[in-house]
């Protein structure tokens, strides 16, 4: 085991005000089960899960209430014990409608008999372990929510030689992963070891930004006895160090090809929270029913890192943190750079909810955008080396073919371009709209080809 600084420098990036001091020193606090949880069937990338319960059913904590709806999908579990109150569409954090199961808690918090403990995981084969991960409904907890068991099953022609564990937490305000590493380093390391065993990966890289010295120390301690090619990577604090493709490059110098996946360059990236969830699933036999969410922002009375049941309503989560002591104009699910603004507090936490951020009026001003002045700041900030200024103008003109030729589909929506834009152009909004439109066109073209063929 050794500790080194990231050997490669990522392109672009920005240095936003991190504001992590609001919640950094708040130890993880477990919130008692709320009266009602709303568990979405679409907490992950891919096909939504199919509800297995109906109104009136009684469920126990840990009971499977949604089964995977396809190959790229994940199971969902009840996070409290109680009665199913409703099964129907509800908005997710991103605003899209998806089936959700509302469970009224019976206050007893009775758990389903936990599954078998597998302290002997090192003796189990990869297939068995991947099955256990899938049963636990684990998805990438850093934000994207890609089903972990799918990631762990690459096609036979791909070899994964490097497991990268993402503890960068480059989003401003968020401190959930920081706290998790400081308080649960050993558990995370066990999870990492299990993942390493499943993948048979030669190398393990744990990456943490240098603005988290305590987390670095804690992980270093937990990893001290590790054998083989295990390295703790100190990343320079800048945004977006935690973006998958950028992190892979910063650590290995490998560029994930345009349109490709990390496994194309022999890498697999998992968030530290996901590693802990894997440990809980394998060693403790517990499915994923809770996570740590940073509830923060200046208007929040008592910011903190809250271990909450998945499906906790945002309103309950904020109330648990003492409510809002001053007016907020914006509520963001996630961090300020890539999170989703919420119109109300009716949504609920998901497996991917790393933060809930309240912004004061002066922190989220409403402004008009100006025409692009071609200052080139977005070009220098873009970690994908795109020309956001040019793309946004093409998209404003609804020239989707041109935008496609200019690689808008490679945009990772990190927000660096809009962050630096002096004309305050809604660059990410343009990119998102363009990407959605082009994806739709591609699907239609594929459909047409099928019908013809």
């Amino acid at each position: 085991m050794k500790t080194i600084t990231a050997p490669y420098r990522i392109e672009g990036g920005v240095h936003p005000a991190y504001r992590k001091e609001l919640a950094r020193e708040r130890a993880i606090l477990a919130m008692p089960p709320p009266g009602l949880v709303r568990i979405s069937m679409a907490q992950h990338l891919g096909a939504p899960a199919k509800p297995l319960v109906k109104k009136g059913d009684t469920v126990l904590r840990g009971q499977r209430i949604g089964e995977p709806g396809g190959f790229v999908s994940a199971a969902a579990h009840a996070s409290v014990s109680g009665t199913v109150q409703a099964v129907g569409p509800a908005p997710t954090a991103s605003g899209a409608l998806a089936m959700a199961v509302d469970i009224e808690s019976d206050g007893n918090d009775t758990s389903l008999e936990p599954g078998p403990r597998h302290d002997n995981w090192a003796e189990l084969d990869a297939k068995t372990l991947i099955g256990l991960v899938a049963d636990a409904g684990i998805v990438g907890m850093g934000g994207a929510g890609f089903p972990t068991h799918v990631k762990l099953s690459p096609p036979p022609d791909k070899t994964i030689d490097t497991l990268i564990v993402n503890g960068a937490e480059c989003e401003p305000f968020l401190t959930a992963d920081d706290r998790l590493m400081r308080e649960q380093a050993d558990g995370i390391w066990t999870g990492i070891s299990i993942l390493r065993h499943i993948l048979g990966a030669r190398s393990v890289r744990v990456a943490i930004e240098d603005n988290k010295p305590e987390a670095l120390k804690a992980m270093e301690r937990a990893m001290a006895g590790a054998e083989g090619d295990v390295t703790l990577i100190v990343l320079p604090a800048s945004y977006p160090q935690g973006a998958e493709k950028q992190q892979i490059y910063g650590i290995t110098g490998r560029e994930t090809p345009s349109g490709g996946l990390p496994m194309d360059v022999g890498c697999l990236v998992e968030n530290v929270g996901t590693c802990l969830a894997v440990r809980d699933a394998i060693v403790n036999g517990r499915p994923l029913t809770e996570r740590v969410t940073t509830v923060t922002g200046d208007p929040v009375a008592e910011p903190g890192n809250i271990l909450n049941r998945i499906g906790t309503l945002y309103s309950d989560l904020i109330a648990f943190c003492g409510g809002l002591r001053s007016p907020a104009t914006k509520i963001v699910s996630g961090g300020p750079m890539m999170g989703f603004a919420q119109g109300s507090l009716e949504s609920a936490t998901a497996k991917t909810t790393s933060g809930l951020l309240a912004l004061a009026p002066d922190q989220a001003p409403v402004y008009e955008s100006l025409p692009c002045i071609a200052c080139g700041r977005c070009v220098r900030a873009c970690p994908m080396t795109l020309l956001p200024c040019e793309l946004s103008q093409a998209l404003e003109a609804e020239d989707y073919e041109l935008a496609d030729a200019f690689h808008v589909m490679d945009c990772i929506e990190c927000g660096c371009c809009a962050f630096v834009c002096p004309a305050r152009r809604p660059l990410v909004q343009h990119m998102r709209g363009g990407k959605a439109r082009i994806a739709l066109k591609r699907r239609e073209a594929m459909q047409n080809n099928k019908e013809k063929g």
Partner: protein
Amino acid sequence: MTASDSHTTLYTVSSSPHAHSGASVPCIMFDVLVALTPALLAAVYFFGFDAVRLVAVCVASCVGAEALCRKAMGRPVKAALADLSAVVTGLLLAFNLPPSLPSWMAVLGSVFAIGIAKQAFGGLGYNPFNPALAGRAFLLISFTGRMTAWHAARLPERWSFGGLTMDALTSATPLGMVKDAIKAGDPLPVAMDGATTLRFLLGDMGGCLGEVSALALLLGGAYLLARRCISWHVPVCYLGTVALFSGIHWAANPAAAMPPHFHLLTGGLMLGAWFMATDMVTTPVTNKGLVVFGIGCGVLTMTIRIVAGGAYPEGVSFAILLMNAVVPLINRATRPRLFGQRRKA
């Protein structure tokens, strides 16, 4: 607000990011104005009332023309004025005029700069040419005589270069004098000894209002760099190319050519390299593009100054305008390789 009524509260919804660096167009323009202040003070010192008169006339007419154009086009007037870009254009245009220019000509140049070169293309952000330089070029072509007539303002007794007294009204810029002498086959009229270099650096010479004091312009340029309003690429490449080009020319023929520091300090090069060739709207967006742009400006400037035997001894404004015209091509040619896109084998 308490948490109990938060269910009914509606919050602002917008696309991420929900954070901003704080940079804004008016901020950038304000920084440019701050950076131009030393040169403005130098202009007032060297040219007195004429400097005040032309700056006032140009700024007022540019702002007025901007307001009228926006109104005529049925576009928001206040927002266009609030970005301060018309004030910057007015100030830069004034800096590019000889002190003796009649006010009505300055008004005409301002109206052309804003009305034709900027608003006719759609306003800030859409203009292919630097408006102030377009205004100067318009005046230079329309009123060549008045635009190249220099008077020594209030400093007549200082005007002697190497024993040669300046003509009060014609060819009074050092570059003009040199060019005329070379054309006539006379010995070079300016000797770049220490004293002359210092005078040129401070701005004690004939020329346009804002271009004379290299020192004041360098101060402003350093401010823009420190505020990250501009990057080093254009000024360094532009000045470097001029130094290299003139250095080679001078080394090849020291008797009939001026040394690099003469070319660097005269003819509005500092004004052009720090303030006109760094205009964001009319320059490339990539760093590589800015390097190409700067080198191109340098080559064209020196070509006009040395190679061509034409009527314009300075070269800076036409060099930048010509390079403005090829910015879309530079942008296309210097498109960065996409992260993750295969390098060409």
